[in-house]
């Protein structure tokens, strides 16, 4: 049986045509784009084309606003550290409680260095309170960094509006758009977003390549200094094969944008409805009406996610979970906790994230596979009785040191 990959928010397969485009850059096109000879020159032209392909996907005004980096994490760090560097008198940062660790861990480290970080709260559906945000926008804030789409739930934040509010208050605005780029259309030139992070491996380009979009005129200090690559804004010889691949992947994403938002979305909805129709005590987390077309995160109450993943994996189905065990930490996903999802459900969340390579037949196989797995694990659960949860679960099972 062919394996079914539903973990595209973790990483994606590189599109075969993208692989083909990048391969020559390991062999005959190996030159250094900075070199004077023709080996380098051709590579330089290929990078220029890739830059324009990225520009087209995100609707940037100039191709020079595209800075190639080594990954989404580097783009995130560069953006925030640059904003702090150019405004040493501003010691506050605004972000959200549900960011990716690429932002959260950095912010926690900055707190130790004396910065004040405001983590915007979310409600039960993972939505922000813009009044709370507005009150925090003062001239003490160096940068706002808010993710566009959440990697666990797919929930979208109104970053265009938030960027306008920041701009009106004279505060720089960055968004981690790693999960949304290539899945929903955007037009940065008509927004007030100053900086935006992209990661190649989330849109069928290779791992280890990213982009920092930097609006022309936005004040900037590089993270890596050295050679004049990327106009001195990111030193280090270009990863030309991956840059070319990312360009090609962006072009393909643009071509498939409609497909992503019709066919992929329909498959996602089919999966979600199919599972929820058969499995009791399960619910969608995040904001179902306002999320990425490919993502569906379901909480299965009274069981733990790692078991679900292992049993799915046995049937060749790949997904991921927000349980503590799968992250190796002591707490379930900070995103689920921020939304106030109870522990008995937060540990049992499973994220299915689709791509344009998934088929209806695959989705139907998953719909058939999930209910027996959930039933099997619930049979082992101290919270589950003959035909459903035990009455008053919290009373019926109260382990020591809970």
């Amino acid at each position: 049986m062919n394996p079914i990959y539903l973990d595209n928010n973790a990483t994606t397969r590189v599109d075969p045509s993208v692989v083909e485009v990048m391969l020559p850059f390991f062999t005959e096109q190996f030159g250094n784009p900075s070199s004077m000879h023709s080996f380098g020159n051709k590579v330089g032209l290929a990078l220029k084309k890739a830059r324009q392909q990225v520009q087209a996907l995100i609707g940037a005004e100039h191709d020079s606003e595209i800075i190639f980096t080594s990954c989404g994490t580097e783009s995130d760090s560069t953006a925030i550290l640059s904003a702090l560097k150019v405004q040493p008198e501003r010691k506050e940062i605004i972000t959200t409680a549900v960011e990716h660790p690429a932002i959260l861990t950095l912010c926690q480290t900055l707190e130790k260095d004396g910065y004040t970080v405001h983590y915007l709260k979310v409600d039960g559906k993972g939505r922000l309170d813009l009044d709370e945000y507005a009150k925090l926008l003062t001239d003490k804030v160096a940068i706002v960094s808010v993710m566009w789409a959440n990697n666990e739930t797919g929930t979208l934040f109104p970053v265009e509006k938030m960027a306008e509010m920041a701009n009106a208050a004279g505060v720089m605005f960055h968004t981690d758009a790693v999960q949304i780029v290539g899945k929903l259309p955007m037009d940065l030139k008509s927004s007030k977003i100053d900086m935006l992070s992209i990661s190649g491996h989330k849109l069928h380009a290779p791992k280890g390549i990213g982009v920092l979009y930097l609006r022309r005129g936005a004040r900037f200090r590089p993270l890596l200094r050295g050679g004049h690559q990327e106009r001195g804004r990111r030193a280090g010889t270009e990863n030309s094969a991956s840059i070319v691949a990312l360009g090609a992947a962006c072009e393909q994403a643009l071509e498939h944008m409609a497909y992503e938002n019709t066919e992929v979305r329909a498959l996602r909805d089919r999966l979600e409805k199919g599972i929820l129709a058969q499995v009791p005590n399960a619910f969608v987390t995040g904001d179902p009406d306002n999320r990425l077309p490919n993502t569906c995160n379901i909480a299965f109450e009274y069981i733990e996610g790692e078991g679900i993943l292992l049993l799915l994996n046995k049937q060749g189905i790949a997904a991921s979970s927000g349980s503590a065990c799968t992250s190796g930490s002591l707490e379930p996903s900070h995103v689920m906790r921020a939304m106030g999802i109870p522990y008995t459900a937060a540990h049992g969340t499973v994220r299915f994230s689709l791509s344009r390579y998934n088929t209806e037949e695959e989705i139907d196989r998953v719909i058939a596979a999930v209910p027996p797995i959930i039933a099997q694990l619930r049979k082992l659960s101290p919270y589950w009785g003959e035909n459903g949860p035990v009455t008053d679960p919290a009373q019926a099972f109260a382990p020591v040191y809970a």
Partner: protein
Amino acid sequence: MWEYSEKVQEHFFNPRNAGALGDANATGEVGSISCGDALRLMLKVDPETERILDASFQTFGCGSAIASSSALTEMIKGMTLDEALKVSNQDIADYLDGLPPEKMHCSVMGREALEAAIANYRGEVWADDHEEGALICKCFAIDAVMIEDTVRANNLSTVQDVINYTKAGGGCAACHEGIEEILTKVLAERGESFKVTPPPSPVAASGKMSTLERVKRIQQVIEDVRPALQRDRGDIELVDIDGKTIYVSMKGACSGCQMEALTLQGVQQKMMEALGEFVKLVPVRATTPAPGLCNPK
């Protein structure tokens, strides 16, 4: 993905003794829902012989929690309560051909459920002093609470101290930032500030150190590391000094273990710091083996 042994996978995919036990007369419920692992162990104990006639479990937890529960029930069936109490968490992990360091707490939970169930049968109250912190050292599965407690109890102040007392940080060294953070916090509580390992007190070149002083320092290093080893049921003794070669005997749980080489390395390092010269530590076999050797069964 976790590297689970075949045995763990097998017990997860086909758990033994799962579900409620109708006529159980001993129940233990332990674990933490916030951490995502909790277990109810049910036993049917023969009141005459105190033998465990049947055992079953219900577990809310990950694959290795379910496998540990399953293994535990298989291991203790047929044992008397006193025999069962000798089953350690390491025994559960060994039965499963090992658990990843992040998952050792699953076997600890099994052992605690057993204690709780037996206490329940005997009409005692089982209290747990278990407090689990974030996993700091992945090489030796040592968490923040353990490190913090040890730093406090022994007034430790350097990363090397922590390595000597807890083993944490003695492997790949990637967790030294985490250890430094704990040291910074605890030192601040006692009004000190964390300093990177203070440079070894300017030791006069070994030629100038008197022989007596040198022997004293060697003895001191040995005394310093003993508490940590004794905690692991091991010990170390100075046997002889022959120029740059120092003979020691490793006893108890340390002797012959995988840990021996690592421990020796650590002690040798400390010795060199204290003496300011290169020395080599050579283990010699103890003449009278201490009780409680490597595999306490």
